[in-house]
């Protein structure tokens, strides 16, 4: 409902300011100190999970983030310890679990990082995230709406029973013929169960713009929807990331730093979540 609301407001705003114009300008925002950044997750599927470690840069750095190499990265679920290895030692800044790793519902995963050189005044960082369960995704469906946009849009529906008596947060990812379409954090959809708690829901979770080649569906396409159970902290984090950077005086409050879960003023999020899949063929 809130997303519908945001859509209405943005649309209204768009109508009102059809007279407005934008232009690129140069701004000097100075320099800031360097912070440590974690980006990665583990989930219930068996896979080699990648954790990317980087450093922050000045805002107009305009190059990939500086990598953090040669770190010692450990993962623990409270019972078992796992060591993560840098994919290209001393070069990639990407640390991976073994391909046989899978996360277990109910465990809390803690990632510990020992840095070769301290960043932001600290040589070690750690971060924890609980892996919460997710309801069973019964099925999915794609419905075409010719009235939305120039060439229409596909609405992706999810069918599942939200558990009563608990607060649930969901994330949705989407595959077309085995290729991940929601391939960056601002394309995934997150939702809470505020308005549907305990209901059987059959609502839309994503819209795909049929004008875009990377979103377009044709009959016969195999679609897969992934519903993930996530923590409130990760839900808030994704929402903040999706809203960040865009500032309309009407609707947005003062810009604020995104709250992650890394200690010692680190930036980013280490997430753990459970997945439930459903597939369908587009008709």
């Amino acid at each position: 409902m809130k997303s519908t609301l945001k859509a209405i407001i943005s649309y209204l705003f768009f109508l009102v300011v059809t007279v407005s114009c934008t232009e690129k300008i140069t701004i000097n925002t100075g320099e800031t100190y360097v912070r440590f950044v974690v980006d990665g997750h583990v989930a219930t599927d068996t896979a080699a999970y990648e954790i990317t470690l980087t450093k922050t840069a000045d805002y107009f750095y305009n190059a990939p983030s500086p990598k953090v190499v040669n770190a010692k990265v450990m993962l623990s679920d409270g019972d078992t310890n796992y060591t993560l290895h840098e994919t290209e030692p001393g070069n990639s800044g990407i640390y991976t679990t073994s391909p046989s790793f899978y996360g277990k519902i109910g465990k809390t995963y803690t990632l510990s990082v020992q840095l070769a050189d301290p960043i932001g005044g600290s040589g070690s960082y750690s971060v924890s995230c609980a892996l919460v369960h997710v309801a069973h995704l019964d099925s999915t469906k794609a419905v075409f709406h010719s009235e939305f946009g120039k060439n229409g849009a596909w609405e992706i529906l999810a069918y599942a029973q939200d558990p009563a008596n608990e607060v649930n947060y969901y994330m949705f990812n989407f595959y077309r013929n085995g290729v991940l379409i929601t391939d960056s954090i601002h394309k995934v959809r997150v939702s809470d169960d505020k308005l549907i708690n305990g209901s059987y829901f059959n609502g839309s979770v994503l819209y795909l713009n049929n004008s875009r080649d990377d979103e377009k569906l044709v009959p016969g396409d195999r679609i897969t929807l992934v519903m993930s159970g996530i923590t409130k902290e990760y839900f808030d984090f994704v929402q903040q990331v999706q809203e960040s950077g865009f500032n309309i005086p009407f609707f947005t409050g003062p810009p604020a730093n995104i709250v992650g879960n890394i200690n010692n003023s680190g930036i980013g999020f280490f997430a753990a979540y459970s997945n439930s899949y459903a597939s369908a063929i587009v008709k």
Partner: protein
Amino acid sequence: MRFCTVVFTLLILFISYCSAGDEPDNTSKHTISGKVTDKSNGEGLIGAAVFIKELNTGTSTNSYGFYSITLPVGQYSLIFSYIGYHNSITSIQLHQDIKLNIEMEQKHETLKEVEVTSERLDKNVVKPEMSTFKMDIKTIQKIPALFGEVDIIKAIQMLPGVQSVSEGSSGFSVRGGAPDQNLILLDDAPVYNASHLLGFFSVFNNDAIKDVKLYKGDIPANYGGRLSSVLDINMKEGNNKEYEVDGGIGLISSRLTIEGPIVKDKASFIVSGRRTYADLFLGLSSNKALHNNQLYFYDLNAKVNWEINENNHIYLSGYFGRDVFKNSFAGFKWGNETGTFRWNHLFTKKIFANFTFLYSDYLYNLGTPDGNTNSFVWNSSLQDFGVKGDISYYMNTNNTIRFGISITQHAFNPGKANGIGSQSYFQDYVVPGTQAIESAAYASNEEKFGNHLTLNYGLRFSMFQSVGPTTLYHYNSNYIAIDSSIYKSWTFYNTYTGLEPRLGAVYVLNELSSIKASYTRTLQYLQLAQNSTAGTPLDFWFPASPNVKPQVADQVATGYFRNFRKNTIETSVEVYYKWMNDVIDFKDNAQLLLNKQLEGELRIGKAWSYGAEFLLRLNERKLNGWVSYTYSRTFRQIPTINNGAYYPAPYDKPNNISIVLNYQLTKRLGISANWVYATGTPVTFPTGRAIIGGKVIPIYSDRNAYRYPDYHRMDLSVDYACKEKPGNKFKWDLNFSVYNVYDRHNTWTINFVQDNIDPNVTYAERTYLFGIIPSVTLNFHF
């Protein structure tokens, strides 16, 4: 309720005492009283000066045009004056109480006319009142306007000490206060959201408005409930002499007003309507998606008044306005309604009373059409019912006592959302509302000490009681709700009270200059859940509660006032300092909408502001307007925001210049120009970045550590009137206006955009709303 009974009893006792006291005491003194009205239409003139030449003293009319002055037996010359009107001089022999109604005639802009101005127009110098600005609607109508749409709020934003919160917005900040610290009254009824179309237009239709007065400080004791200012707007009463029709056809809206007598000289009415049709242009757009959109607003003002007899006069007025947005996908509607019934009653010639019943409602609802799985409606509203009694006792030439009480019931419904239709999977979601009773009693006296010093001292007692039904959450020190209490209907679950002293002083140095000073304490029990700078129709008001203390402000101000050229040039310098406590702000990434635990998102702290305002106001025959310069600063300090360090408030724009001028070239041709300049709005910019999940994540500077580029803009307009023919009532005039003449690209917002092609590249992008915008409006009158 017991409190009200006590106050009422005291009030009645006082009136009987004063009435009884009248007779024996006044053997040697008598009262002159009456109304001052416009000769052409019978409208009461507010704030007209009444000057007694022989005694070098005087008074002025109240907001109904009534005056009363008590003098010893004798022969007097009474001079009535009002800007834009010919003076009226009356000689009287005073040996009994006299009823003297005065009809004043408007000056017409004739070039030959030479006025001998020996009169006393120097009210602004002698009156114990500062930090105020009064404008009649004619002045406002001459100011060049965006899309030619004359707007009271946009005119207010050009006054010294007033800042617009964002380009095109109807929000304004007075002396560093937040936009929700302004009490906006339309015929005494509070208007909770003064914006149409996201603020590009205000809800006030200038055809229905008589005049406007802004109190930036030195707020009289009869007003309360907001920290920073009172904007008191009076609707026209309607011509009680003859029928009149006024209208206008503009680029985006049209207006029509009809007024006239119901019973000549006794009762009259006015009805005024306005409707925009900007959305018709959407049909012309090349973007087909825009064709089926409706987006418009309309409003209706109506008022009737009836002078029952010499001692009783009643007024009934109302406003109704709605904004509507609709397409196949969603609908959204919002607006205000207000209603006021007022009864003026003269208990004696010296005691003027007004009793008011008022109603105000702001609501919005939005939703998606029925029949889908995600169909829903969402409603929110705030309703007020209030009664007030205000009494002025014109005791003698040295004392004018005012007192009164008011009681308002507020009903808050911050948000209720529910699915509609059998297919919808949404459940009801209700943010608990509450009720409150806000009451106040006040008394003040305007007292003259000799010929130089006048004091206006008063005290206001205010009380705010929270009343069930509600669910009240309790928070721990980390602002997390740990518990809640449920209160049944009409349980009084919390009470705040406060004393608000008000003091103003004027020391007249000589005929043309004076020094003034004031101290004002104000309390505010309601605030707006608004986190953005410009504001939206979705902003809702929420009350003080056990978790939210009332906000308190103390303001001191002093100034020097000097008039020149027979009072046609008024100048003043005022300096002020304002301390605000228990002001609210929201935590980072606050969620305001559909949040049952909104109070957990609040952070409470303090704010302060100071400044100096320089004003030169011209009331020459051909040239009028004002030039002002303001230096002002305003800061906030709130725990957990900006790591507890103080930061500039969003309205902190240190340097501000406004020039508003109108020059009447010939009888038919007038030109107007304005120029505004303001330091850029403070803003938080990203200074660092991380890349997460393919997206550049900004890392921000301290709160409001940067500024947008400075704002400046010039507007021009030319008004060309038809030739007046004797005996022909039909008149028209054409107004050409140009907004932003030199096409300045003033920053509305700056966004930081991640490049589509190279996601490692980011750049800053400025959005500006209005380039140069010409418009034309045709006004007619018959």
